[in-house]
């Protein structure tokens, strides 16, 4: 019943030419997404900035939010900058309510998000 989460990893160049890892999520982000989401994070957990792409995510619940916070915990430990884009207005509001926007900037599109890092 829970839609599968697929996470792909891209590498792009930031405005100053420095590499940025982009985690692109597809499907739902829920308790069933741990392996996909945290597994992908562990492959980019090397100190560089990370973008989170939610443009193909249909549903995020509180367990999914907890996974995003787990990524922010790891980013805080390593000093990695994180930004997110592609959230619907509703989930932008939810992310702001729970405080995620304090630790990861929320942007409309990839270009704006990348330029913030």
């Amino acid at each position: 019943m829970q839609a599968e989460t697929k996470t792909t990893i891209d590498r792009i160049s930031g405005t100053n030419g420095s590499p940025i890892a982009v985690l692109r999520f597809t499907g739902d982000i829920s308790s069933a997404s741990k392996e996909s989401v945290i597994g992908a994070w562990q492959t980019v957990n090397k100190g560089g900035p990370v973008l989170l792409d939610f443009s193909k995510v249909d549903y995020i619940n509180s367990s999914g939010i907890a996974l995003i916070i787990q990524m922010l915990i790891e980013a805080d430990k390593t000093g990695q900058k994180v930004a997110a884009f592609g959230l619907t207005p509703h989930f932008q509001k939810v992310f702001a309510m729970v405080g995620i926007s304090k630790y990861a900037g929320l942007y409309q599109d990839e270009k704006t998000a990348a330029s913030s890092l």
Partner: protein
Amino acid sequence: MTETASTSVEVRIPSRLGFEKVAMATAASVAKLRGFSNERIEDLKTAVAEACINAIEHGNKLNEKLSVGVILSASDHELEVKVVDNGAGISKLPSKPDIDRKVHGEEDPRGMGMFLIQALVDEAEWVHDSKGTNSYVRLVIRLDKENE
């Protein structure tokens, strides 16, 4: 505005994670038929999903022999949702989550569900019977001012 009769819809879902999306979609359909704005419908969807997840995980403890009841009652100006499970309910609402404590590892990263419910709907109350074998959360969401 012409008054229309109140509507009641009931759904029962198994105590299996993922099925909260059935309740969420049903609530969204009822709210749309009643003229709720997209923004209010999105708020409702998240609140209903979180209430069902709590009922599945904590109320019915993922026992698939038990079901979660979702009763939607719509009037012209508001939609009431009751999410019923077989658990003992909660005796005390959890404190508001603290993102700083969570990010610094001082608080469990989980535990956002009840906070989101309270933040997204106009009324939320948790009710349990004296025997501790049945409880429900009652949510009320009202039409936004633009549509009144």
